[in-house]
């Protein structure tokens, strides 16, 4: 019953499609958004419940559909993030085909779930493509030039990355004569990796870097964040990034753990950690510096996504189990914060018509609820305690150091230092948004003195992440302990 | 505990004034006047205590900073007691004069009380730390008193007073810090003991070895630094630049405090601190100090001669009078010879300081009366012929002036007599030269009397009445304080002698 949640999602999607078609052909009116959200929500909740189905004992190969701790935990977490994303309603005029839209959301989630639970390269590719294809479509739903541009760019970059990944996987298969990560690990243990394996891994990494929006492979991100519906962006930034991290952790720590080398300052050893470290450093620098110049909230969040990918890669570059655990913790926390920020942005857009940072002016007066939530999200992203984002970064940096430094070796201190300092810089652009919200007064011609009340779903998609971020910031063990357990379960000691 | 009570009493009064929002000028001043009787009673009570090793009262030592031999130690011996008594009396006169001249106010009276408290501390402290704390605590109240209630030139005068005094005490602080760093204590009696064992120079030489100077050279520098701090307060020429303006610009009751008490802090310090701690280097410094003292005497007298402002005349006269004290102290540093002469010189110093305080208070009281009745004029030539209108005032003022110029039978005489007695034996040339000063003093003081009280009566003073009952009462008290010690100096010497002998033991230990 390993695939029960996925099955539930697919069935729900089909039901939703059918109902929407029936409704629309009968009433000639668009399917109501709230019904669509309701059905999708029920489906996701059922899928979460289905996680508790006891896994079937399979004979033989279990790498195709792993049911290890990581898979179970992250399927649940990704479903949760997906649920929150779905709760952000699109603007009324944005999406005419509500039924199709939400069905595709569910398909994308299905793909993500599958990708989170496999140790097999080929199956991984298929799952990721299922998710990606749905996301390309989801990005282009509004019939606007921006959305089309976003969708096209996303598709083109995504396609290239898929090609890279597939090409790399074929190299890896050529090297190890298997697509199973555990067996690749065994093959690597025999001797030093061949050039074939290195090239293969490099290409797979490039492919994943595209998907994770790591610089310099991030060019699609700002346009997609700006053009796509907020719901899509929330799914891309939160759920899909979380799955990307799980995939990376599986690939690198299960498959290529022994080929990691070292990215320590002064003690470099060839291996993938150096590439990751470079990728990480470039992402941190690019993301943060470019975010400084943004005037659009969504583009700002896109560059912040790039920067945050960089922080995540710092922990991965340590090639350690604890570091991986804290990175997985952070990716969830990051997802919550970005998702919440997008939800607030969507609300502000609905109220003020655009997502420029200056349209946040006076938010604290118009809607204290949104303003306080925004404060939580952005300060969590900036890494200010007592919010979870702070703890996540702190845990990543300290575990990355602990895994690499000892005695006189400074380990990844250079990268951690860069991350910490650029994270400080990031406060500047987050604060410039908060400044609008808290310090500035809204322009004279503002429509109303108080913002309209948010729909319940929307309000929940703002409130739940905010509460969770505070809670996880104060008691990080709630999430960190299960993740550590899951990581041990999946990666072994 | 009595000492702490004594120090806290005026502060408590100041606090009460601060809290009493309904007090106007007269009321606050009356209250302060009444309140300052309390410390006087306290001091009088202490005066009746038995002396144990010359100490009449001692406060339990309070640690200031642990493990550093920095304690708040206070005790009262004969000399301290006299200075305490002086403090109480002058404060009393000052309030009386304020009341007479219509000054007062909560802040004004409160600040004077704070000043009084700090002075109590200065005259009782036996360790550098409490002494210096109180020494500096006098600065702010006196600055504010001059600055806020003074005349037109007060801003500059007050600032100059503040900066010069502060600068001087900075040197003093550095000097004592050097001692603390090298011998590990700033306790006056311990330092004096070390000094009589000739341990200071060695300690300094060891600690400041990097400077490459000998111990006695270093000790000389330290001594000069300490002297500088004290000399500014006295003041000794050439550190007197702040004095004329400050005395003249301050309101007259405050001038009374400045000359009657603040300048005595310097004399007290020279006698009680400077002399016992630096006997090793004093012989070599003596010519310099004596020179400065003689210069102070002569320049003070000559400057007074050239003034036309009554307050400035009295200001320079103070410089001149305290110059004798410095001369006596310097002289007693010169040689380790005649105990009798030394004792005379030092006893004379104390008596001169005390008596000058009382006499100056009486004189300034008189100036204050002139000033307030004439609406602020205090020029030497503004008045004339007042004797006809105010015979009583003329009489008492005259007595005070004669006491000031040292007429036998009045209190001014005994101090000067004893000092000259001692100094002639120790440094005859200095005594001889400063006799000129005595002469000049007589000239300018008598001229003052003549200009004010004799000659033709100016028309605008035609309606002046003589002293009022209250004023007569205050002057009567002052006259008593001038006449009694003059006739019965033993009353004061009884208090000073044991302490002087102690100091002499430290200066020239009996072999």
């Amino acid at each position, binding site marked *: 019953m390993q695939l029960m949640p996925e099955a539930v999602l697919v069935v729900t999607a089909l039901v939703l499609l059918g109902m929407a078609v029936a409704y629309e052909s009968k009433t000639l009116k668009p399917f109501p958004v709230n019904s669509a959200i309701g059905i999708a929500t029920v489906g996701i909740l059922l899928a979460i419940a289905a996680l508790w189905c006891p896994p079937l004992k399979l004979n033989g190969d279990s790498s195709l559909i792993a049911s290890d701790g990581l898979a179970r935990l992250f399927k649940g977490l990704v479903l949760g993030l997906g649920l929150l994303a779905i709760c952000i309603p699109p603007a009324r005029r944005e999406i005419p085909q509500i039924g199709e839209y939400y069905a595709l959301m569910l398909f994308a989630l299905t793909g993500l779930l599958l990708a989170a639970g496999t140790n097999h390269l080929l199956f991984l590719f298929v799952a990721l493509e299922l998710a990606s294809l749905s996301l390309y479509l989801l990005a282009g739903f509004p019939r606007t030039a921006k959305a089309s541009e976003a969708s096209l760019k996303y598709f083109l970059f995504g396609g290239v990355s898929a090609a890279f990944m597939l090409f790399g996987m074929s190299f890896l298969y050529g090297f190890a004569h298997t697509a199973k990560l555990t067996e690749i690990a065994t093959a690597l243990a025999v001797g030093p990796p061949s050039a074939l394996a290195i090239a293969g891994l490099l290409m797979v990494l490039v492919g994943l870097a595209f998907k994770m929006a790591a610089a310099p492979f991030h060019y699609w991100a700002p346009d997609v964040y700006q053009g796509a519906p907020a719901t899509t962006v929330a799914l891309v930034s939160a759920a899909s990034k979380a799955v990307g991290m799980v995939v990376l952790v599986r690939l690198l720590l299960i498959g290529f753990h022994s080929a990691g080398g070292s990215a320590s300052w002064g003690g470099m050893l060839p291996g993938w950690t150096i590439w990751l470290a470079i990728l990480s450093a470039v992402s941190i620098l690019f993301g943060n510096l470019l975010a400084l110049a943004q005037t659009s909230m969504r583009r700002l969040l896109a560059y912040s996504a790039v920067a945050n990918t960089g922080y995540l890669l710092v922990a991965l570059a340590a090639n350690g189990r*604890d570091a991986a655990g*804290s990175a997985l913790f952070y990716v969830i926390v990051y997802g919550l914060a970005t998702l919440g920020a997008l939800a607030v942005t969507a609300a502000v857009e609905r109220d003020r018509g655009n997502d420029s940072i200056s349209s946040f002016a006076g938010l604290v007066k118009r809607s204290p609820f949104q303003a306080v939530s925004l404060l939580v999200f952005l300060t969590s992203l900036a890494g*200010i*305690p007592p919010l979870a984002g*702070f*703890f996540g970064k*702190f*845990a990543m*940096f*300290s*575990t990355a*150091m*602990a*895994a*690499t*430094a*000892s*005695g*006189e070796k*400074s*380990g990844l201190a250079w990268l*951690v*230092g860069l991350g*910490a*300092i650029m994270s*400080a810089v990031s*406060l*500047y652009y987050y604060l410039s948004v908060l*400044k609008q919200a*808290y*310090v500035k007064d809204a322009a004279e011609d503002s429509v109303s003195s108080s913002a309209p009340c948010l729909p319940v779903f929307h309000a929940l998609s703002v409130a739940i992440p905010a509460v969770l971020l505070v809670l996880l910031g104060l008691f*990080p*063990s709630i999430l*960190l*302990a299960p993740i*550590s357990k899951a990581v041990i379960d999946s990666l072994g000691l | 505990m009595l000492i702490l009570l004594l120090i806290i009493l005026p502060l408590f009064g100041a606090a009460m004034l601060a809290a009493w929002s309904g007090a106007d000028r007269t009321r606050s001043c009356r209250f302060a006047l009444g309140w300052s009787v309390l410390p006087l009673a306290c001091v009088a009570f202490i005066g009746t205590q038995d002396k144990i090793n010359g100490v009449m009262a001692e406060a339990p030592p309070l640690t200031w*900073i*642990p*493990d550093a031999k920095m304690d708040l130690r206070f005790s009262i011996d004969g000399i301290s007691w006299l200075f305490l008594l002086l403090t109480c009396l002058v404060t009393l006169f000052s309030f009386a004069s304020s009341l007479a001249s219509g000054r007062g106010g909560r*802040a004004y009276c409160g600040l004077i009380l704070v000043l009084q408290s700090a002075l109590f501390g200065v005259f009782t402290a036996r360790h550098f730390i409490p002494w*210096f*704390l*109180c020494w*500096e*605590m006098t*600065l*702010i109240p006196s*600055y*504010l008193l001059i*600055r*806020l209630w003074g005349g*037109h030139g007060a*801003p500059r005068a007050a600032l100059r007073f*503040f*900066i010069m005094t502060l600068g001087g005490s*900075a040197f003093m602080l*550095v000097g004592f*810090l050097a001692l603390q*760093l090298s011998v590990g204590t700033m306790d006056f009696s311990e330092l004096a003991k070390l000094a009589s064992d000739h341990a200071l120079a060695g300690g300094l030489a060891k600690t400041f070895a*990097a400077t490459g100077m000998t111990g006695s050279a270093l000790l000389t520098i330290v001594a000069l630094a300490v002297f500088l701090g004290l000399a500014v307060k006295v003041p000794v020429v050439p550190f007197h630049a702040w004095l004329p303006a400050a005395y003249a610009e301050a309101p007259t009751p405050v001038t009374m405090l400045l000359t009657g008490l603040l300048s005595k802090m310097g004399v007290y310090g020279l006698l009680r601190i400077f002399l016992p701690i630096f006997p090793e280097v004093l012989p070599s410094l003596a010519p310099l100090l004596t020179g400065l003292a003689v210069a102070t005497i002569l320049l003070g007298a000559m400057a007074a001669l050239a003034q036309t402002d009554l307050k400035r005349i009295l200001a320079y006269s103070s410089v001149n009078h305290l110059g004798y004290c410095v001369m006596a102290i310097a002289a007693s540093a010169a040689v380790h010879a005649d105990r009798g002469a030394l004792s005379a010189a030092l006893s004379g110093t104390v008596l001169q300081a005390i008596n000058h305080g009382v006499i100056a208070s009486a004189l300034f009281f008189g100036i204050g009366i002139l000033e307030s009745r004439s609406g602020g004029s205090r020029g030497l030539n503004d008045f004339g012929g007042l004797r006809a209108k105010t015979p009583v005032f003329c009489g008492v003022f005259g007595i005070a002036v004669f006491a000031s110029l040292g007429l036998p039978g009045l209190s001014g005489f005994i101090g000067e007599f004893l000092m000259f007695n001692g100094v002639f034996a120790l440094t005859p040339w200095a005594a001889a030269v400063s006799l000129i000063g005595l002469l000049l003093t007589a000239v300018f003081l008598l001229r003052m009397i003549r200009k004010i009280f004799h000659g033709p009566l100016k028309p605008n003073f035609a309606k002046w009445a003589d002293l009022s009952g209250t004023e007569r009462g205050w002057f009567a008290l002052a006259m008593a304080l001038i006449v009694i010690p003059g006739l019965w100096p033993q009353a004061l010497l009884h208090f000073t002698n044991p302490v002087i002998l102690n100091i002499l033991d430290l200066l020239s230990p009996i072999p």
Partner: protein
Amino acid sequence: MTPAWTILTAFAGALLVLLLPARSAAFSRVVALVASIAGALVAAVACLERLNHPDAPVWDLNLPWVPDLGINFHLAANGLSLTLLLLTGIVAIAGVLFSWNVSHRPRAFFAWFLTIIGGVYGVFLSRDAFLLFVCYEVVILPKYMLIAIWGSTNKEYGAMKLTMYSIGASALILIGIVVAYAAAGGKSFDLDYLAHATYAPSLQFWAFPILFLGFAVLAGMWPFHTWAPTGHVAAPTAASMLLAGVVMKLGAYGAMCVAMPLFPQGFMEWRMVIAGLAVVGIIYGALTALTQKDLKFVIGYSSVSHMGFILLGLAAANQWGLRGAALQMISHGIIAGLLFGIAGRVVYERTHTRDLTALQAFDLWKTLPGAAVAFTLATAASMGLPGFSGFVAEISVVIGLWNVYPWLTIPVAIGIIITGAFSLRAMIRAFFPERKSTDAPAEKMPPLTRPEISAIALLLVVSLAIGIYPKPWVVLIDDGLRSPLFQSILSLP
């Protein structure tokens, strides 16, 4: 009564203020005052208990927090912490009193204010590097908000500059802590544990300056001080008082209780540099203050100068030096609070200028004699006149310095003289101008209000109490210095 109540009262007060209905704005300041007084009382009682039972074990609260990373919720209060708690409480009370008339969004104002207080209490009580860092960072956002919303003169620039310096500095601290954690084996963030671990000298050589600099920036070390005057001038009065009074002390406290105990050998290598920078800071701050035209800038630069004494005491690193540094923390906390309170609240609220030339027209000593007398006393305290707290502190530092770098006492003496000069200059220009009798008499001003008088009296009395009878404070500080943290430093040659 445990000292932890200080933290609780502050945060509970902040929460309560926020939860109050919007109409009860006036009530919020009462809540803030009560919370501040409660905190100060708790601290005072704890101080007294410690004084009466010097041999009792130090109060200690150690709860597991994030066991995966070895993070504990560890609070402990030795005498040093307790005195600083008391300082914080006193400045907090004065700050609330000086903000009695805040009418613009008072609830938010006092909520942020109390948040800072709570964070500061937390830092002074923390014995876990992570917890300390959390509390340290909690302060940052409220600082920004207080300045940006309620500030004056160039407030947004000042707020952003101050915040960026703070967060940048805390990035350095983060790196330093994480390096220590990793090098000590990655087991625990407990400060006692970290201080007892041995670190390779080469690591200490580069890790110490990072950690120390992080703290020293907040302590206003030259040349990283420029945030201080700008920020303090821009801040509203209560915030200036808090910033200069206690928040700068966080930096000094961290340098003393974290950076130096962790890397004593690294400290030895950099000691001379620290001492040199401190002396430059003393003189530079004083000289710059001498040329300022704005009364608050004078005070701001004087803070730089005074904080130099703390760093100097730390560089001396012997009993006298550390004791002097701690005394100076307390003393400057009180005096800076007093100066900023008078200049920013009492004078500015009535004259609406802080320009030294413009103030002359107001003839303040006649129109506002209470303020003039108070400022004179504050100036005397700031000059380090005996009888005020500054004297004890500075003399202790100088004695401590003498035993290490005797020649440095000469420039320090020069610095003290310049301090006297600029203090007098500012006082005379602002309060005691020389006016011609032909000048028009200045208009009357409302007399000091009761809260103002209470705050001034409170601070003055404390400064005098320390200056005249420092023994209890010194005993408490010495008690703190006996903590095992400092043994490695105090045993240095």
